[in-house]
């Protein structure tokens, strides 16, 4: 497997706070990569750096071999590198199907294509994906009236609708009922295997991430603490110290 995202020596500070210091990591194409670390360890900052929300101070970020650290959010999104938000962002005033149809990959459309109506296939795909995340029955409801967990599922379905190459998920299971989490893990895995989408996941729930990821990176205090297979990370004393506090 080759790497699709490559970070080399990425640093980012906010004033005196070093959110990320000299981070290097690789996301394997077609795989599931996990990113863990205690609160405030710089995970979301790293995500934001990758998708272009803020410029980085040092280092390089490559997507499919192309340097993207100087590019803007919409430009990066149009390359097929998509992110979901820690606090979900959906279009609350619209129903679920509309939310899905808006998420069609506009980057692949010319203006003339955009001035066409959605096709029968678009609707079918939207409904199929809503069924995939278990929201089919609620498809005609205002998405803002859904519960937080359902909104997260909707946001995930919207991301799949967009046919991304890589999907960056910021805590996909946070706020979701534990009984639904197993279903979500299964769906994430299927998105990876069936749709061939490379996943990079920030997650606090160790059971979830150890269950899914091929490779796990652990951040602490803005630095890369450890990386490797889930089993190795789980037993790494430095990781345990970072989470539980070293004595």
């Amino acid at each position, binding site marked *: 497997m080759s790497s699709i995202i490559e970070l080399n020596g990425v640093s980012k500070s906010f004033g005196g706070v070093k959110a990320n210091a000299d981070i290097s990591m690789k996301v394997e194409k077609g795989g599931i990569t996990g990113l863990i670390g205690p609160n405030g360890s710089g995970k979301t900052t790293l995500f934001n750096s990758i998708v272009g929300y803020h410029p980085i101070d040092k280092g390089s970020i490559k997507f499919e071999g192309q340097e993207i650290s100087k590019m803007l959010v*919409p430009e990066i999104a149009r390359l097929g590198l998509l992110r979901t938000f820690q606090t979900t962002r959906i279009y*609350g005033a619209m129903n679920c199907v509309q939310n899905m149809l808006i998420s069609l990959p*506009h980057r692949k459309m010319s203006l003339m294509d955009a001035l066409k109506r959605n096709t029968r296939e678009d609707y079918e795909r939207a409904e199929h994906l809503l069924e995939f995340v278990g929201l089919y029955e609620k498809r005609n409801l205002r998405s803002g009236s859904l519960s937080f967990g359902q909104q997260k599922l909707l946001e995930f379905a919207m991301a799949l609708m967009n046919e991304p190459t890589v999907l960056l998920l910021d805590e996909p299971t946070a706020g979701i009922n534990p009984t639904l989490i197993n279903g979500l893990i299964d769906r994430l895995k299927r998105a990876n295997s069936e749709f061939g989408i490379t996943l990079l996941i920030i997650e606090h729930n160790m059971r979830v991430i150890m269950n899914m990821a091929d490779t796990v990176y652990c951040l602490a205090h803005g630095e890369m603490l450890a990386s490797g297979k889930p089993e190795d990370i789980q037993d790494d004393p430095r990781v345990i110290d970072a989470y539980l506090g070293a004595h």
Partner: protein
Amino acid sequence: MNKALLYIAIIAFTIVAPFLFPAYNTQLATLWLMIIVALSWDMTGGQMGYNSLGNIFFYGTGMYVAAVVTIGLVYNVGEYTAASGGGIYEWTPTQYYTGLALSLIAAGLFCSLCAIIIGYLTFGLRGPYFAIGTLGVAIAAGELVSNWDWVGGGQGISMPSPPGDFENFKFLIYFLYAATGVALFMFCKWLYSTRFGAAINAIRDDEEKAEAMGIHTLRYKLVAWAMSAFFVGVAGAISAFQLIHFEPLETAYQTINLGIFMVVCVLLGGKGTLWGPVIGAIMFHVFKELTWNYFLGWQWVALGALIVVVVVYFQDGLMGWLATKKPEWFGETIEEKPVEAAQ
């Protein structure tokens, strides 16, 4: 089926109304003007979330484009305005109607071009800043034009008088507005059913998310505003022929009158809906004419009170109020998957 009947009834009424109520011909024409500016304001204000207070710029610019095209086809515009009506300038009917037809198209296209240029400069602004920024553009344009002697400066400019009977000319104006209004309504109905329509809704609801999903936000915003400006420009051009003489600050770039009225119409009817601006324009026009007739002297107070009541109590307008009262009318239901499809 019922919908088709409704549309046919509306079109039929549109056609016979000026003949049934010839005394109200000008009123009905103005009503169509309100519908046009309200519908086109809603394209960006309601559907895309960019509340422009400067759409009146396109109305005024449309008027001046019409004047320059119609006069310029036959005479030298600078000499014409310098003569201030002193010279003898006449148009044959053919020249007049050629000017009229070309004016409408030229005004629309020129305003679209202006929208793209102004949009490029102002679409970085969000929310109230965009509203103030565009208002500034409209006010500045009025001041600039009133100091531009080539188009008549603060005196304004006169269009040629219409050839033939003036009563017939009123019908022509009415039907020009009505045709533009119907075309705009059908255009909006089609546009909001496309992916483009959905995308501008996405920009309204969460532009950052739309960007993160790879939607070409700036491009779509420019195109939407250019479409909206086209129709306002055409309406302005028709107004130029209707009013015959107009001046820059009170008529063409009338920010505090029509510039605000179009927003109030949309607020009354319901932002971001297809029918809202139309219903709002009718409600507003009736309200305005009633107060102007029966409460003269207090009409601005009444109008102010109406705006306050709408903004405080009915922010979503009539259609929005209906949508919260009767969500099922708008298709908001829980629907189980049909059994055969689930297998």
